[in-house]
């Protein structure tokens, strides 16, 4: 963590609607380079809406200001946000049949870095990152997320995180559906990204991942708001006590 650094991500007054319905009801967040923030909350609290809305999913209407590394990206489409260094690891990664992991990633890396990465160089880098994540090199030739198991999809999300080297990453329930070995690999990937100064928001509703990834800040998210923020000990408290004890705070409209 670098306390003197400028934030890689800052959002203020974020409200997100689906049609008429307000899901996210005013969120402010500031993330510094290399910081890990965990956003924990019960199912249906709007965590995934927050992550997808911030990235620019077309279903959502987003109000508020989103600043990425000092630049206002609030009005930008997702691809422009991505090219400026923002990343979303999907809870449910989408299959794109007919497009191999390697060709997709080469297109993405070229788009984000703004240069055509030579095939040989790209291939070398890809295989090295796959080895880091204990992935069979044959994965490079498979169609993206097509027929992948839940754990394989999550590994491929982390592979993308490591290849794209974003300034700021939102990880939406990347830990769900993983066995313990896969969880460790995913955690290793997250820690690698953080050591390269990526600021990170982990959206999760289990404490499990936090045994391997150490958050600087834990936010409790209920009914579309952050109702409490604290250190890593807050995650343990949630694990022990659940979310019910925070309901009065949620009803009061958050912190």
């Amino acid at each position: 963590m670098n306390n003197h650094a400028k934030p890689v991500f800052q959002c203020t007054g974020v409200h997100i609607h689906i049609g008429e319905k307000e899901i996210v009801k005013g969120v402010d967040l500031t993330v510094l380079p290399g910081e890990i923030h965990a956003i924990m909350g019960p199912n249906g609290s709007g965590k995934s809406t927050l992550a997808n809305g911030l990235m620019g999913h077309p279903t959502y209407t987003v109000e508020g200001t989103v600043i990425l590394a000092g630049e206002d990206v609030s009005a930008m489409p997702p691809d422009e946000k991505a090219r400026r260094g923002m990343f979303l690891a999907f809870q449910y990664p989408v299959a794109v049949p007919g497009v191999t992991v390697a060709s997709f990633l080469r297109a993405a890396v070229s788009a984000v870095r703004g240069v055509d990465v030579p095939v040989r160089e790209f291939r070398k880098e890809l295989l090295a990152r796959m080895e880091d994540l204990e992935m069979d090199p044959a994965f490079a030739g498979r169609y993206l997320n097509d027929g992948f198991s839940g754990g394989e999809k999550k590994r491929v999300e982390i592979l993308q995180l490591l290849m794209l080297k974003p300034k700021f990453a939102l990880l939406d329930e990347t830990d769900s559906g993983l066995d313990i070995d896969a969880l460790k690999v995913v955690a290793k990937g997250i820690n690698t990204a953080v050591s390269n100064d990526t600021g990170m928001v982990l959206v999760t509703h289990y404490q499990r991942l936090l045994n391997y990834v150490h958050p600087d800040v834990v936010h409790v998210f209920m009914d579309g708001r952050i109702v409490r923020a604290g250190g890593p000990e807050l995650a343990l408290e949630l694990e022990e006590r659940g979310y019910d004890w925070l309901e009065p705070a949620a009803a009061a409209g958050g912190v």
Partner: protein
Amino acid sequence: MASRPVVNAPPTVALDHIEELSRVAGEDGTLLAIRNQARACLVPLELPNRARHLWRYTNPARFLPESDPTAVAPIDVGSTWRLDEPLSVAALIAGGALRLVEVDATARKAGVVVEDLHRAPAGDLLGTVVPASHGFLEAINTAAWRGGVLVRIPAGISLEHPIRLRLVAGGLSLPRVLVVAGEDSSFEVIEGHVGGDRGTGKVIGVTEILVGKGADVRYGLVQRWEPGVVGHLTARARVLAGARFQMSLASFGGAAFKADVGAFLAGEGAEVETYGVAMGGDSQHFDHHTEHIHEAGKTHSNLDFKVALTGSARSAYTGMIRIAPGAAGSEAYQENRNLLLSENARAESIPELEILTDDVRCSHGATVSPLDPEQLFYLKSRGLPHLQAMRVIVYGFLDQTLARLPQTTRDRIAALVAARLHTD
């Protein structure tokens, strides 16, 4: 779907100069007789009834010649062809004649024969796979075809390099192709349709392929006419026992294109695969009909046809699988998927199954769908701009099918797909 029969005006296609055409082309009496029979066959034929499935989506009158095709002097279209790959055979049909034939030394030594169909002793074979009675346009072609090639591969011969036939559209073209694959021969033949760069062109083409016992033939039909061309291509293979026939179909060009392609699985154990992609844009009209006709037992066919449309393009696909009473133990699969990239594009998909025996496995699937917004969002969230994300999805959609083709054909069609994606 109940539909009212559409009454067509009686066709008025004059074929008054068959003898002269045949004589000038140097044909023997057998070929002339086939032409005359076709003309006789045409007289009682009516224009295809638009109430019938095969012509429900496309007006047959569009494909008719505007004047007597036996009288029209063919337009001498430019016919340069840069041969930039190793080929066993290169043959070019343009301006109503076979203009160029090159047979490499290996193929020549192996006894591969490539002849001008007008002068070839092909009277016993011509019309045996696609007879004049096949339909109105096939009868016109059989009576009035001009510019044809016979390719004959002897038994037991395997050709390393493909055979490439190029057919150039211009004015009115009625090309005819006859490929004879000897027993246990193995080769790839690509029929590429180009041309029409003078803005218009009309094509009525027929291709027949005889696949001998145990042969392995990969046949590609690649249509990339210039905009404005209106064309109808019929291609059929007769596949004998133990033989394998793989067809790849790639449709890109023209204003209106109807393809009627397929195979007769005529001998026990015959295998037929058809893989195709079509990409249409602007106001292009595509109509593809495929037929896999299982005549013999233990035959196997598979079909995978993909269509991607932009602009206000239209596509109709009708896919016939017929399993004859004697074809027990056969399997047939068919899949047609359509991707619509714009609100005004339309696609229809109609599978047709005639299963006349019990002991078969058969399945079909068809979808018509727009771009998946979740796929788009996923790719955009990785930095790909909208247009590039769209192209990646379309390319993947089509490449799944192309992946089943021989590598060189796959690469070639993939390059055409990529080029097309970058112009739309």
